[in-house]
């Protein structure tokens, strides 16, 4: 966990999160628009045609927080944000569990949409997390999806 300023919050945690509470924190002076993304564990892996009973998320402690912090600071300037929160869960998760929260506040709505969308695209391709899908005794490290790389490219200026 690190809390860089009152308006930037980064947490890597096992516990679930409460979206209402997180939204309150994003509510700063001058905020007119808040966009939240919530990622949910799905119970089915389409690529491998496989039901998922649970998954385990591992990450690279220290690097994760540092890289997320860098990307948030860049987003702050680009979209004139008033707050950013990134929460990513690790450890064992089950289908329909919340896995990731990206919340962004700004004076204007399009900036909030774009910044939240960009940070999610970035997390998918750059934040050092890895998913191990489990189905009884079958364990399968999820493979990187190249369409995520394409998604990130749309933010290149």
């Amino acid at each position, binding site marked *: 966990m690190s809390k860089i300023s009152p308006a930037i919050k980064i947490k890597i945690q096992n516990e679930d999160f409460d979206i209402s509470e997180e939204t309150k924190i994003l509510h700063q002076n001058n905020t007119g628009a808040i966009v939240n993304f919530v*990622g949910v564990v799905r119970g089915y892996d389409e690529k491998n045609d496989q039901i998922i009973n649970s998954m385990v*998320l*591992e*990450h*690279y402690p*220290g*690097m994760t927080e*540092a*890289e997320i912090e860098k990307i948030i600071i860049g987003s702050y300037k680009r979209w004139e944000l008033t707050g950013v929160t990134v929460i*990513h869960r690790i450890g064992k998760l089950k289908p329909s569990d919340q*896995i*990731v929260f990206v919340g962004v506040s700004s004076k204007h709505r399009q900036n909030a949409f774009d910044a939240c969308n960009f940070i*999610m695209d970035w*997390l*998918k*391709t*750059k*934040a*050092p*997390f*890895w*998913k*191990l899908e489990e189905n009884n005794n079958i364990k399968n*490290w*999820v*493979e*990187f*999806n190249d369409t995520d790389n394409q998604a990130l490219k749309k933010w290149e200026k």
Partner: protein
Amino acid sequence: MIIKYFSWIKEHIGKSEEQIDLPNYITNVNLLINYLNELDEKYNIIFEKKELIKIAVNKTYSSFDTNISNSDEIAFFPPVTGG
């Protein structure tokens, strides 16, 4: 030098972290990989397709020609799958 491994690379190596003493002539990531490949053949599968491996030096994304020294922390991992 500390070397960290994640995801299937960690499982293949059989540990998440190891400490090695870097000879003086190992001055960048490429040379480290050659060194490991000669040390033990378990490394070969990992570095067979180098373009599929991501590298961090001191917790920052780096490349095969990034300079390294014995006091650095290097990590090898597959493309990320969080979010």
